[in-house]
């Protein structure tokens, strides 16, 4: 054979191989490019949805009421689909088909979670031939997409006497216990915050003061800046600062005249109103009026929080103190305890007594046995339900839906905040199917008060005010050298912009900030709010440990040099404001689904 022949044969062999390889690799590249594009669309749509939830809840005075919450969640889910449709339009997906690729959307809230997925639309007959399931068909399908019933973060435990009780958890240290305890206790339903009761001391019931972990908790005066609609027809409004208290988780403001004098009725009762639909709705209920007069418009929520939490915790320790993770009943059957199966829950707390709150198991802190167990229970509950929902997802596509594995780090995000987890799977990309999820958490809302969700307002010598994170170095140094003084501590949602619509025309909307009091703008600190640098650990402040710069901590390779000792008076002032605000906001949080005992 001549050289030319060999060359031709070589080319004949190499060219097809190279072409097939090129096409295969190109296909893979296209698939991954598409996958990245889908990933981005999914994350962006989820973020848009949680943003919609955030905007709706901060601007909605009724956002905490159960029906209103369902509406906010449904609105947020429709935002998700809108956003997904818009961004997917480039990748030739018919917008109406998208629902079929989203087997589940998980929405975790303060005390439980919703799953948005498909459900069978049936009703049961009554009367003759009772309990026949009749299917309601819509567009040829009997299944529809919608919110499934709310699921509490709950677990069952077997007591020593064989009785079974239920504990509902939340995203913080509040729990509800119910069940038949047997003996003298009998059937009990109790809700409350679990804290270390030994920390609460020197209770003075008449002055409403106590000390918590060495910090003095006193009644405090709260105020907010509001725009009220004075005359709805003319659209006239008034801007002013009002002092307020909470009564049964609703804010009650005291009215004042134009020159700022507080108004009282002739018998000395303050003139109080609810802020409803941006208008002053005056309170006539004698019970509420009486309460307002007796507390002299000073909030005692922080005192009530610690006082009630102490009582509740002591009861829990006495009645549930012996429970360890062994006594947890399996979610699958609800009757057999997990015993020494240490892998059933994602966190193994061993033989530690979960509800026995003490200095070593302080439920306020993230590394306590209670907290680890709580996270594990919530995770187990979500995992079990989500798995069932996704594998049973019914739609027109033939794809076999399965729940992807979510890593520990991601679970940690989900379990610590309000979050939305969206799953998208079943779309063909190249030679395979797309299967991914997006987790977006949110900490600016009125659903939960995490330790990070309290901001401190500080004032300088010229009456300029800024808000700070509690762990801000600028704040602590300012307090220490006397250039700053603390002017209140409020939850993160109070620093969000509020809007009022006074006419059909959205250009007339008025905006205001709840904490922009005295006609002054309140800005965020450049160190901790704009640059988001918090130098000190918030849990150190919670515990009362000395403060060490993040990079100076021994576990981060530093020298362990202390910046502020826990005896420093500026630090103590800060800690008092912080612990008071945290307790007050937790106590006043409206829990729509939670409190079964009331």
């Amino acid at each position, binding site marked *: 054979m001549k*050289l*030319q022949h060999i*060359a031709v044969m*070589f*080319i004949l062999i*190499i060219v097809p191989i*190279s072409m097939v*390889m*090129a096409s295969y*690799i*190109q296909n*893979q*590249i296209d698939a*991954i*490019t598409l996958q*990245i594009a889908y*990933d*981005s669309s999914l*994350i962006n749509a989820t*973020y848009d949805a*949680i943003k919609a939830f955030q905007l709706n809840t901060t601007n909605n005075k009724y956002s905490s009421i159960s029906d209103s919450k369902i509406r906010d969640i449904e609105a947020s889910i429709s935002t998700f689909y809108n956003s997904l449709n818009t961004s997917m339009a480039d990748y030739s997906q018919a917008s109406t088909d998208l629902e079929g690729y989203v087997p589940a959307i998980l929405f975790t809230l303060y005390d439980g979670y919703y799953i948005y997925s498909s459900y069978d639309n049936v009703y049961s007959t009554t009367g003759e031939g009772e309990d026949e399931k009749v299917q309601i068909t819509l567009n040829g399908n009997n299944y529809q997409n919608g919110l499934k019933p709310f699921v509490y973060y709950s677990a069952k435990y077997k007591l020593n006497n064989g009785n079974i009780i239920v504990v509902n958890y939340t995203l913080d240290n509040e729990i509800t216990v119910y069940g038949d305890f047997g003996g003298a206790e009998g059937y009990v339903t109790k809700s409350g915050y679990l804290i270390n009761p030994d920390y609460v001391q020197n209770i003075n019931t008449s002055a409403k003061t106590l000390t918590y972990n060495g910090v003095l908790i006193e009644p405090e005066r709260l105020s907010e800046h509001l725009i009220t609609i004075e005359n709805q027809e003319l659209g006239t409004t008034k801007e002013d600062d009002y002092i307020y208290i909470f009564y049964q988780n609703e804010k009650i403001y005291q009215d004042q005249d134009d020159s700022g004098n507080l108004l009282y009725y002739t018998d000395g009762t303050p003139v109080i109103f609810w802020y409803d639909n941006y208008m002053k709705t005056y309170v006539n209920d004698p019970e509420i009026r009486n309460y307002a007069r007796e507390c002299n418009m000073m909030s005692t929520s922080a005192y009530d929080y610690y006082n009630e939490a102490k009582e509740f915790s002591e009861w829990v320790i006495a009645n549930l103190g012996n429970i360890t993770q062994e006594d947890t009943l399996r979610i699958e059957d609800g009757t057999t305890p997990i015993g020494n199966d240490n892998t059933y829950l994602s966190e193994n707390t061993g033989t530690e007594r979960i509800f026995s709150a003490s200095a070593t198991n302080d439920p306020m802190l*993230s590394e306590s046995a209670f907290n680890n167990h709580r996270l594990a229970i919530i995770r187990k509950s979500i995992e079990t339900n989500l798995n069932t929902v996704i594998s049973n997802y019914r739609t027109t596509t033939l794809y076999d839906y399965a729940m992807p594995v979510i890593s520990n780090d991601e679970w940690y*995000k989900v379990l*610590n*905040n309000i979050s939305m987890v969206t799953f998208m799977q079943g779309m063909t990309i190249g030679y395979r199917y797309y299967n991914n999820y*997006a*987790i*977006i*958490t*949110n*900490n*600016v809302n009125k659903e939960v008060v995490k*330790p*990070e969700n309290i901001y401190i307002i500080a004032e300088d010598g010229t009456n300029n005010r800024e808000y700070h*994170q509690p*762990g801000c170095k600028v704040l602590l140094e300012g307090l220490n050298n006397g250039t700053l003084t603390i002017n209140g501590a409020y939850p993160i949602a109070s620093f969000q*912009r509020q809007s009022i619509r006074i006419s059909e025309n959205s250009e007339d909307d*008025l*905006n*205001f*900030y709840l904490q*922009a009091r005295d006609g002054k*703008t*309140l*800005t*965020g600190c*450049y160190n901790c*709010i*704009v*640059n*988001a*640098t*918090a130098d000190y*650990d*918030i*849990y150190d402040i919670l515990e009362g440990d000395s403060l060490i710069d*993040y*990079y100076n901590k021994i576990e*981060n390779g530093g020298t362990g040099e202390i910046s502020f000792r826990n005896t420093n008076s500026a630090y103590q002032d800060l800690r008092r404001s912080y612990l008071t605000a945290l307790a007050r906001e937790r106590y006043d949080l409206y829990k729509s689904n939670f409190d079964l005992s009331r």
Partner: protein
Amino acid sequence: MGDSLITVVAIFLAAILMFIFPLMSLAERTDDISQLAVQTATTEFVDTVRTTGKMTIEDYDQYLSEISSTGNSFDIEILIQQLDENPGKKTTQAEATKIGENLYYNIYTTQVLEQLDTNGRITLKEGDIVTVTAKNTNQTISQMLRNFFYMISGNDSYQIAGQHTAVVSVNGSTSR
């Protein structure tokens, strides 16, 4: 004389056809795959930052090792735009979500790396924007082979690049 000239030409052609062509095609495939790996790693890195609200030295190191495993050296540019809502707060009518009514402070690569070195992390807040760009600085085999035929010169003669930008969706947790 004529025959030997043709033979020389034929050998050259054969060499190009049999060695350079497959080599180039293979090298370009390699670059395509590197490109893909770099783009995926960049997207993942930025998405981690945006959903956790912090950039940690561990994540950055992992990103570095992922893109270096393609066998190329990279020039990485990180840009963090920090949202400053304060100017918008001073006028109550400002629309916080509208472009132009809020300011962004930019932090560039060297500042980012310096902070990562000293603090081990950078915490971000909701609304900040993170952009990461990676471009190769070495010559890949396919670039070398291509330069054999024609030259592309200039500053931006990169072959492999990955870029991703995202808005941070959560306030980074500042505690442990």
